[in-house]
């Protein structure tokens, strides 16, 4: 299966070719990519990164998480806090505090907002916090040998609890409105086409690197240990592997990638609010992977694209039916195409081969 070559090409094209088509091709041409497309595609690439992270832990290691929305939101909120602080005194109330705090009649910044006016600090939080939470959570869960459905339910409960916490105004993250009305990042206006383009290129590059890293991992012996854990964990333990360490490693890495995806998502979409932590959101992430094909990285990326493409179409054409469609899609895929889109693709390819040789 040469799916990885296809994805490799696709990622290279999105990183380099699309920006060139915007800059060098005249606007009248059919090949010109307009400015507004970049945050849109960038958003999709963030979803693709989430799907990649999800596939590493679920598709390869067999651990279903229904709480990845938490890690995504942590990265997103950290970035959002930085962007809020960068607004400075240009908010509605012309205060040094974020607008929602003025509205709540708060006089000073809560301690956990300290440091977020500094980009480097924010970056460290993005890179460390989601992974750290995952590590701690995973350490206790894996040590107590919580598996399968139980693990999925606990992660789902985690995202639900955090969503409720973030919905409260007093928690200090903007309540149900979340964080929005961002003005600039690192001094560059977020409205500026070149800023949008830069964010897009960074996102594409991060996705590309994560894909290369993911491929390296699943092709290494480590990757074979992970799939072995998925298929027969007790055999792996009796062969002398401390499976807790392996699960912790890939679980933490998955959360780490998910947090980065959230951080890249927020400046391009312009908002982060607690609805990202809705239980349904995390379930949707699992569906991307199921549709694309569990256990193939390229499948996961394609799945994220397909499902979100369908979602965009439904939101315009028939918004009420989206959830029904999603549910039906999930059932059909699970029952009839357990290997998802990637599985169908491989089957078609191998049929062709058979015809050639016959």
């Amino acid at each position: 299966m040469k799916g990885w070559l296809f994805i490799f090409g696709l990622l290279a094209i999105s990183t380099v070719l699309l920006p060139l088509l915007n800059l060098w091709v005249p606007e009248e041409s059919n090949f010109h990519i307009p400015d507004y497309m970049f945050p849109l595609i960038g958003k999709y690439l963030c979803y693709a990164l989430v799907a990649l992270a999800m596939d590493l832990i679920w598709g390869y290691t067999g651990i279903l998480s229904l709480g990845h929305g938490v890690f995504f939101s942590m990265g997103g909120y950290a970035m959002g806090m930085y962007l809020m602080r960068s607004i400075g005194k240009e908010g509605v109330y012309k205060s040094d505090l974020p607008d929602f705090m003025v509205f709540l009649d708060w006089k000073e910044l809560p301690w956990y907002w300290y440091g977020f006016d500094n980009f480097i600090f924010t970056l460290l939080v993005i890179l460390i916090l989601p992974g750290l939470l995952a590590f701690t959570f995973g350490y206790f869960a894996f040590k107590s040998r919580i598996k399968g459905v139980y693990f999925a339910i606990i992660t789902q409960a985690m995202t639900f609890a955090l969503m409720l916490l973030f919905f409260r105004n007093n928690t200090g993250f903007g309540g149900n409105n979340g964080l929005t009305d961002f003005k600039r990042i690192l001094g560059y206006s977020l409205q500026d086409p070149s800023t949008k383009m830069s964010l897009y290129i960074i996102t594409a590059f991060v996705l590309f690197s994560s894909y290369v890293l993911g491929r390296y991992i699943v092709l290494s012996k480590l990757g074979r240990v992970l799939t072995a854990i998925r298929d027969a964990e007790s055999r792996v333990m009796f062969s002398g592997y401390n499976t807790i360490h392996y699960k912790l490693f890939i679980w933490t890495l998955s959360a780490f990638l998910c947090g980065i995806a959230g951080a890249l998502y927020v400046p391009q979409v312009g908002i982060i609010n607690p609805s990202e932590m809705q239980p349904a959101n995390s379930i949707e992430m699992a569906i991307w992977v199921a549709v694309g094909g569990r256990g193939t990285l390229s499948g996961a990326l394609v799945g994220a694209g397909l499902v979100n493409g369908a979602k965009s179409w439904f939101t315009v054409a028939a918004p009420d039916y989206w959830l029904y469609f999603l549910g039906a899609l999930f059932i059909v895929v699970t029952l009839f195409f357990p290997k998802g889109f990637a599985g169908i693709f491989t089957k078609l390819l191998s049929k062709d081969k058979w015809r050639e040789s016959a």
Partner: protein
Amino acid sequence: MTGAHIKDDLVDTTHGCILYLEEITVSFDGFKALNGLNLYIDEGELRCIIGPNGAGKTTMMDVITGKTRPDYGTAFFGQNHDLTQMTEYEISHAGIGRKFQKPTVFLNHTVFENLELALHAKKDVWHSLTKSLTGEQKEIIEDDLETIGLKEQKNLRAGLLSHGQKQWLEIGMLLVQDPKLLLIDEPVAGMTHQETEHTAELLKSLAGKHSIVVVEHEMDFIRSIANRVTVLHEGSLLAEGKMEDVQNDQKVIEVYLGS
């Protein structure tokens, strides 16, 4: 050399014994699967364990490998490894390997990859991520493929093997793991007569260098390899001794062989 010089991770067998089970008791919801079981295995010994279905043979292996914790009793590997305090992977590292009753191999991995995963090597995350097989390690695997007769199937997914071949693969995985003590649960189930003979030869050739505990129902097979035989019944030891003696034991005939 005295015991004091033996490093902690080595198995101290200065008393000639490699496995000590004393008064092991395991109950499941009040039902005693093992009931005050005593068993001693000598270094280099090949021991067969027989007994009717439900006698507790598999449960005994679960206790030795850390899968099941006994309610009562002690289990020592050498004189220095308390098996009841160790995790599965620590027990494996100390040098105990196991073949399950139902053959358990990695069905989505190739035969070669199955052996690669079992191979005696550093098994931490970092090594798995960064190191690939050395030429020497590949040779060990190739030799092993020869021994278990799966050279042709080396790149085949293990899920496609026959039942007997899966048994062989699992035995092969044990061999490359290079344990000091092998626990083998019903190795010849599903094997042809010829394959069974081959297995007997293999196990006999391993004894001496390794200590081996084999659980089997297949009497001809037992007869062809057995030195000492232990009979389990209702979770305790019913008889122990040479095959001929055990076969003529009145109690054994009643509960097991007679049927």
